[in-house]
């Protein structure tokens, strides 16, 4: 375990070692030779890292025709690891970037990553299927990485199906319907046992513009998605009157006691609990939570779980207009550092591998695994194979999915629902996602990165989050909310607005 060489290096460090820290540059990956091994760095989202000798790893190496050296880094600290890696001379050929982090944006604009804007078109499987998402994923119009495609429509309202039946109400279509359901869930004993219940479950939400329940409510009431475009200029969505109106109606629900009392502090990690315990009956979040809740009810009651959970998509405003809140449609990038991939030939090799991995076969390897080992195909859907070998591969799949991009569209298999209720829910999700997409309110400023926002964005967002919640909690009145939001503009927000408009006009 401790080799003799490192033992010597470790204990006998003489004075000579003192100067070592200075020599960061030099040897290593920096040469023009053809690449023989592909090094990748990726965040690990699953519990264990794949074994490099594992079946899936080997299968992927064989498929791309090149040995892979993948550094898996725990997701919670991925940024730190990226930082030190970029400071060293041992940089991978493909670096997964989890989003438009300052480090990525600054490094990319300083020339640290290959600009792929005009190159990707040469690779059929790397050509984005959806140009809108591709534009949103760009940095001020330039492409510094292949984005990783994700569902654009995920917003859902998840409700207790049995409670709805008990109070005799239909699934909500408008926000007014939801207000009525929240009232009935609080006042009409939906559980049927006299226990205290409420309607909407709201956790403490510390972010702005990240598809939280308050963001959803605002968009449903006509608030723009982060940036509002009017006559060719952008302004922050929360400075528009719709934002305040939406929050007035949300405050009414809270004041009436139709939500959990601890909405300001409830740990978002325990969001499911009141729903499972039968305390609250409505959650406005992403659709995958609906599936999660269904499986929790299934665990408790494998027979009668089917009538517990139902799900609808985005809600219409009181006047019947549908404004649906989409996600950015992607989650991070695969970027190629110039210091490790130095020549056009090397770049072609790396992109070639990525192109292969984005083909139908490649996508299935990364997203489904190995057919016949961990899954089989039934009705065009994947069904897991229960075996020790299979579960090892399945566990690796959840890690390898992180290095798939499918920017050309998802070609992998979706997994077959485990039961009738799941199948019904999945079908409904698919249908609402498709119809909501037509009414999606996209963020017109998505592609633009303002320096001022990079500097102060987190602090500025905090002003909005706090003001909104203080208003809902009654600590600020409407005038107070307006003046707090004005503070956003005064504390550096105006500069963000100016820079965004400059970029927007240059890009549009």
């Amino acid at each position, binding site marked *: *375990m*401790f*080799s003799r060489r*490192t*033992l010597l*290096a*470790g204990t006998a460090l003489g004075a000579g070692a003192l100067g*070592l*820290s200075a*020599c*960061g540059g030099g040897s290593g990956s920096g040469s023009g030779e053809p690449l023989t091994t592909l090094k990748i760095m990726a965040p*690990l*989202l699953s*519990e*264990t*890292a794949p*074994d*490099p000798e594992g079946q899936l790893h080997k299968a992927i190496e064989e498929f791309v025709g090149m040995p892979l050296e993948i*550094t*898996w*880094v*725990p*997701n*919670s600290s991925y940024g*730190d*690891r990226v*930082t*030190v890696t970029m*400071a*060293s001379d*041992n940089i991978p050929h493909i670096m997964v970037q*989890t*989003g438009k982090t300052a480090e990525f944006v600054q490094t990319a604009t300083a020339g640290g990553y290959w600009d792929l804007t005009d190159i990707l078109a040469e690779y059929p499987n790397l050509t984005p299927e959806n140009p809108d998402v591709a534009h949103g994923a760009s940095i001020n119009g330039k492409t510094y990485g292949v984005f990783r495609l*994700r569902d654009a429509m*995920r917003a859902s309202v998840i409700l207790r199906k049995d409670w709805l039946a008990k109070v005799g109400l239909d699934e909500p279509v408008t926000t007014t319907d939801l207000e009525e359901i929240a009232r009935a869930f609080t006042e009409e004993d939906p559980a049927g046992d006299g226990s205290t219940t409420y309607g909407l479950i709201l*956790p*403490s939400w*510390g*972010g702005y513009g*990240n*598809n*939280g329940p308050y963001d959803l409510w605002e968009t449903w009431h006509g608030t723009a998605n982060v940036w509002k475009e009017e006559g060719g200029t952008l302004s922050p969505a929360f400075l528009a009157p719709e934002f305040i109106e939406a929050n007035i109606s949300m405050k009414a629900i809270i004041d009436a006691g139709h939500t959990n009392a601890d909405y300001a502090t409830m740990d*978002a*990690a*325990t969001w*499911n*609990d009141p729903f499972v*315990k039968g305390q609250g009956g409505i959650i406005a979040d*992403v659709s*995958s939570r609906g599936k999660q809740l269904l499986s*929790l009810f299934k*665990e408790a009651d494998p027979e009668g779980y089917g009538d517990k959970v139902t799900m609808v998509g985005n809600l219409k405003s009181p006047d019947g207009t549908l404004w649906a809140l989409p996600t*950015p449609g992607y*989650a991070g990038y695969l970027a190629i550092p110039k210091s490790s991939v130095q020549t056009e030939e090397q770049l072609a090799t790396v992109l070639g591998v990525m192109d292969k991995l984005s083909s139908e076969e490649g996508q299935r390897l990364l997203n489904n695994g190995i057919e016949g080992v961990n899954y089989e195909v039934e009705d065009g859907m994947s069904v897991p194979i229960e075996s*020790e070998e299979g579960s090892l591969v399945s*566990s690796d799949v*959840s890690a390898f*999915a992180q290095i798939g991009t499918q920017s050309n569209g998802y070609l992998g298999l979706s997994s077959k629902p485990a039961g009738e209720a799941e199948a019904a829910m999945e079908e409904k999700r698919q249908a609402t996602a498709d119809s909501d997409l037509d009414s999606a309110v996209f963020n017109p400023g998505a592609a633009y990165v303002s320096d001022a926002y990079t500097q102060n964005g*987190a602090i500025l*967002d905090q002003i909005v989050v706090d003001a909104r919640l203080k208003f809902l909690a009654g600590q600020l009145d409407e005038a107070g909310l307006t003046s707090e939001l004005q503070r956003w503009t005064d504390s550096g927000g105006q500069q963000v607005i100016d820079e965004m408009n400059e970029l927007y006009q240059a890009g549009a």
Partner: protein
Amino acid sequence: MSSRFVSRQDKVFDLVNILVLLGFATLTILPFLYVLAASFATEVEIASRPFFLWPNDPTLETYRYIFSTDTFIRSLLVTICVTVVGTAVQITMTLLMAYPLADPNLVGRGLIMRLILFAMLFSGGMIPMFLVVKGLGLLDSYWALILPLAINPFNLIVIRTFFQQLPGELREAAEIDGAHEFTTFWRIMLPLSKPVIATFSLFYAVAIWNDFMSPLLYISDSSKWTLQMFVRQVTISTDPSTTIGNLDPNYIPPAEGLKFAVIVIATLPIMCIYPFLQKHFAKGVMIGSVKG
């Protein structure tokens, strides 16, 4: 002490003392018992019961899952080995340095103490440290988990204080007898310092055991991961509500039961060291007898 007359006031004091300490001990142990109980509970039970000390429907499922792969067992073994070797190396280096610094006659002592203090307060940060470790060729070596933290200045200073408290006469006596300094250290000072050595070995062991940054930064090969990498991976779930920008929808937070089970497995072994060390705290040393 035990045989002497116990006054009424003493009895009241004893009773209050015991009650207060027992109350505090209960407060500290209950949450851990909850973690233990929850590690044997089903997901539904964890979601639906706020606090419990005994699961209604005990299950070994999570533990079975954890031990179904050899990754976890391997990382447990790695962590134990690194902790044992690392603690030995670190406590040795610290004792070796603390001892001379306790000598009032050491030339340059003040300067060295000031340099140590400065190093305790100021650090070059993550990146230069990474480059040093890399420069020494320690990346992906277990030594990278040990050597960069070999001497904790805080521990060093406190150990030195302990050495200073040992009667200087002992040292001088040994010196007059012509004993080699190292012999004095080894034969006289160390045996007198058992409680200190036990304490700081524990501190070092726990620090290595709980260290997460070193393996994160210096170990790329996931087959060499220590336990804490898994603990963090499982227990620090990314919270969508505080994520700036959208969380990757592919991220599925780990099951609650798994979190609790991993915490239990990762804390029990290191927690068990303490009772073994306690005998060194149980009774005071007999300095007189050493001197004879």
